[in-house]
């Protein structure tokens, strides 16, 4: 080993920086090398200076302020963590198999019911529109008047709302029956006011749910009779 290596070792003379073998080698070399001995003395002065620097420990001017700032941030972090834990627990609860199945069933049922009602409603509207667009009266066909025996229908056609919306003279009430001329029905169904009437009646007069509506329709269809009359008579024109 040459002097450069030993001089490198001189910089590593604090406890534990050199192995026992290296210390022994260096000691032996120093006994025989004056140049390295001089260098060791110079480095010794350097070490004393560094020791002085080490003894002066930097201290914060206001350590309490630092502590307060740390604890304040930690408390705010903690409250954030608590909120996250609550959210996690809530999500965990919803990820339980029985809750997931129940939630899926509820969503399917709700969506299914809504779709069923939606489709039924539009199917009925479509049927009415088809009826409205069908030919009213073929050439030479008799003009037909229908009599419907229904207290509920009587109540409806005599209501203020219906009187406002119906074509004047289209519907009459006679002898406990509602008398409607077919041509008037057709023109009534064609009229743009029909939809308003249907909506208004359903909402403000009937207050019917689906079951009650079905019952009402059964009642109507079961109590209709036609009254044939000759075109010459022009009974309801």
């Amino acid at each position, binding site marked *: 080993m040459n002097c450069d290596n030993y001089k490198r070792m001189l910089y590593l003379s604090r406890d534990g920086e050199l192995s026992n073998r290296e210390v022994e080698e260096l000691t032996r070399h120093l006994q025989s090398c004056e140049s390295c001995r001089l260098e060791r003395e110079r480095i010794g002065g350097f070490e004393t200076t560094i020791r002085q*620097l080490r003894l002066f420990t930097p201290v914060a001017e206001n350590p309490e302020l630092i502590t307060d700032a740390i604890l304040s941030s930690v408390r705010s972090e903690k409250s954030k963590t608590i909120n996250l834990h609550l959210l996690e627990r809530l999500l965990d609860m919803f990820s339980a198999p029985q809750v997931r199945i129940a939630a899926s069933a509820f969503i399917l049922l709700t969506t299914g019911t809504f779709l069923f009602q939606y489709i039924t409603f539009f199917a009925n509207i479509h049927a009415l529109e088809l009826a409205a667009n069908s030919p009213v009266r073929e050439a030479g066909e008799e003009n037909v008047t229908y009599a419907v025996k229904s207290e509920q229908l009587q109540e409806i056609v005599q209501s203020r709302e219906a009187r406002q919306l119906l074509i004047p003279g289209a519907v009459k009430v006679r002898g406990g029956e509602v008398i409607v001329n077919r041509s008037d029905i057709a023109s009534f169904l064609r009229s743009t006011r029909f939809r308003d009437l249907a909506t208004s009646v359903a909402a403000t007069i009937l207050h019917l749910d689906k079951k009650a509506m079905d019952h009402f329709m059964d009642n109507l269809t079961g109590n209709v009779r036609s009254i044939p009359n000759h075109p010459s008579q022009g009974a309801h024109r």
Partner: protein
Amino acid sequence: MTDEATRELISRSAAGDVLAFEQLVRRFQSYAFALAMRLLCNPEEAKDVVQESFIRLWKNLNRFDQKKTFTTWLYSIVTNLALDRLRAIKRNRRLFISRDEESKIDETLDGFDLHEIHSQRELASIIKTLTGELPLKQRLVFVLRDLQDLTVEEVADVTGMSPGSVKTNLHFARRRIRRYLVEYYRVGSLES
């Protein structure tokens, strides 16, 4: 090794006990500040790094390896954050300060008597003059070993270097600092 009382404080803090953490902060804050100050040579920067270090510590208490020393763990957090700052400072200096201005700044930092250090500012100035131009690795091992008085193994633990690499960097750092001492403070002499 971490003593029993500190270990107890760590596990209570990890369970969310802020009062236990407060004791931990009070016990170790001064060590963290001394290291941050010796690395950054700026009290405001050091204060910020200490705060950030303890907050990071709080968030990661569950990851503390009980076999390791708590101070080593704390020092590695402080060191990493301080190094990030030093790198950012160097980048900004390169971007915004010309070479001439930089040398003017450095001139104002020396001129103190090493044997009569009276204030934090003087000490910060001396350390900055001695270590400011060192590569970051050399600066780090010098501060940890010679100023913070950690063993070579502890320095290796904190920095993630091997003990051999710590010694190599230490040797180069001491050699250069010795030269600065002679040049700036007329302390000692170099090999003729």
